[in-house]
């Protein structure tokens, strides 16, 4: 019952939020009071006030994002309603008036990198960064709509809806069927890969079509890839995940079924929305278009893979061979997802080179403060680093002039 409520509540919220702007404000207020660890008031109050007073300002909107994502990204055991922050962020973006997509995207990217950098340096496990992806995709969609690229907007919307569905389903799924959490991973037949692929192609479709987006589009694509990679490290590691109610064979069967059916159902249910934004009726299943001529034919790949695998396993040789083969497919892998937690919960140690740099830098800084003549650091080790810095400079110049 609780699981059904957790799906029904966000669904009802989406329906209301998509239609009315003031509802978002009420929802935000209620949500902030209910959340486990809310954003500190000295930031939340001015941000909320600014976003109400200046609805058209991009900076005010950006100030709202830390408020939205604070519970999910800061606390160790995750937010109470992780999907809600993503839904609220998307609806805020949807209702925002005239925002500057490039500034918004830069803010989101800076936020992602800030959170990641903090986690890497302080040795903490990153929170669920996947929640940021819907906001990034929504920004892409607004940019595509601003430029009049209806096909591109439809592609982003497909990725956005699929991603939101996965996020909303994630928490109840962890309670009921923890195996299904791997649907979010960016490995090919899984829906998480569809989100990644569509996101990359939508960002680059924008880059190819619009003048100022060349460099930014590539970086957005890399950002989406980075967030997918962080998903690999964090998905399925929520403390309150239950035990597996079905056997290993059943688990593999359920994953396969969900992989094939979820995109089908999501695109089918939301096809009116896709039609509203993209201008044509589509139900992409057999061949997902990337908007730029590329097509992803996942079902064909899955069918071929299954055919070759069945031939190699020769399941017809033994009685109930298919079931046994399913059970042996991930033997010791689906169960060990819990054990692997230990690997990534350890504080990520910095490599010795970087530590030496930091300590050396600290010493040099102290020497400079005392106005002593510092020794030059050993510069030979920095050859590659120097080239990287020069490369970044050239890229920045290219990006600014394009």
């Amino acid at each position, binding site marked *: 019952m609780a699981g059904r409520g957790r799906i029904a509540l966000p669904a009802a919220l989406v329906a209301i939020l998509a239609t009315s702007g003031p509802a978002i404000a009420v929802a935000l207020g209620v949500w902030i009071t209910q959340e486990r660890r809310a954003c500190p008031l000295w930031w939340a109050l001015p941000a909320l006030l600014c976003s109400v007073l200046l609805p058209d300002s991009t900076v005010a909107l950006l100030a709202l994002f830390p408020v939205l994502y604070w519970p999910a990204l800061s606390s160790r055991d995750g937010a109470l309603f992780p999907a809600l922050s993503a839904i609220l962020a998307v609806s805020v973006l949807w209702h925002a008036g005239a925002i500057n997509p490039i500034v918004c995207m830069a803010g989101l990217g800076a936020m992602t990198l800030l959170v990641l950098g903090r986690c890497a340096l302080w040795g903490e496990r990153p929170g669920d960064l996947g929640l940021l992806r819907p906001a990034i995709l929504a920004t892409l969609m607004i940019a595509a709509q601003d430029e009049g690229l209806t096909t591109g907007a439809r592609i982003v919307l497909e990725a956005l809806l699929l991603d939101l569905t996965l996020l909303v389903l994630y928490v109840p799924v962890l309670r009921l069927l923890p195996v299904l959490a791997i649907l979010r991973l960016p490995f090919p037949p899984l829906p998480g890969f569809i989100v990644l*692929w569509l996101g990359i192609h939508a960002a*680059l479709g924008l880059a190819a079509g619009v003048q100022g987006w*060349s460099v930014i589009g590539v970086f957005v694509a890399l950002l989406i890839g980075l967030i997918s*990679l962080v998903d690999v490290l964090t998905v399925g590691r929520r403390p309150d995940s239950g035990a597996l109610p079905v056997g290993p064979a059943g688990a593999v069967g359920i994953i396969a079924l969900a992989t094939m059916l979820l995109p089908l159902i999501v695109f089918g249910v939301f096809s009116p929305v896709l039609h509203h934004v993209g201008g044509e009726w589509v139900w992409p299943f057999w061949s997902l278009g990337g908007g730029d001529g590329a097509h992803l034919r996942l079902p064909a790949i899955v069918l071929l893979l299954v055919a*070759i695998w069945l031939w190699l396993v020769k399941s017809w*040789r033994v009685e109930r061979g298919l079931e046994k083969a399913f059970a042996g*497919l991930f033997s010791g892998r689906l169960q060990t997802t819990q054990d692997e937690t230990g690997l990534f919960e350890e504080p990520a140690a910095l490599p010795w080179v970087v530590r030496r740099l930091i300590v050396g830098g600290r010493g040099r800084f102290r020497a400079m403060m005392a106005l002593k003549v510092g020794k030059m650091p050993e510069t030979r080790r920095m050859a*590659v680093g120097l080239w*990287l810095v020069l490369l970044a400079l050239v890229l920045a110049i290219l990006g600014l002039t394009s």
Partner: protein
Amino acid sequence: MMTAVFLTVAQTLFQCVLLLLLTSLMAWMLEELPRLINGEAVSGPARQVHNAGLFWRTVFRQPLAPGLALVLAVSLLSLAVLPAVTTGGALISLANPLLVGILLLVGRLMLGRSSLRDEGRRVLPAVLVLCLTEALIALAAPGADGLGGLCAMLHIEPVPGLEGALGACALALAISCPPLRDDDMLLRLEGMKDRAARDMARQVAQVLNCAWIVLLADLALPISVGLRDAGLSGWFVGLAALLARVLLVVMVLVALRLTAQERSERLTALFAGVALLLALAGRFAT
């Protein structure tokens, strides 16, 4: 109509068989070439060919362990899908670099009992470079459908920036994720007691390596893949080009190993950045 379909299917089958024949040769080169260059005496590839023959006989007759079968299925699928001689294969429309690349990397993770900590540090940068590759293809050659579409497009209208960028991407992939070698396999097969199972896993690793090398070769030199309607002479040129570019990639991998440049994160980042720069420069030059 029927003839055309038959020809494409025949070509896909031929490509699979040819690349599988090349697998044991590639394994020999990866293993023995560094020693040969060092001046040691090495034996010919007869042992590897013999082992591969035994392996395929077992595969045809006996069922495989399901996990190993999945890795082998992924490698075989990649060999069938990737453009090899010409773009006229039956499954060419499935050859998406991101899709095939991540499939192969997942196969790499699933082979044996890999330590996620070590392997993750190689695979995660490689996934990012694959994302970059897909992004650069979409940026510099919009309208290209996968690797096959890219080859066809490059034949009609060369994009020098993109070709250089793809070469740099392939180099970054080769640096961050070199093919699995004997010492890697020793670590992975630690807990496995059964000798036959260990040998099977080694052979599957060789097929996986072969698929990875072909992917790198296709990414590095997409222009050398022949076109669908190139005729008989074009087909033979494509065959020679396939052998040449696979040999080139193997030589580069061996050189990277000899100079101890592989598995360096900073070099991976540098070449990924070079790729981005080349693609953007090519885009702004036109």
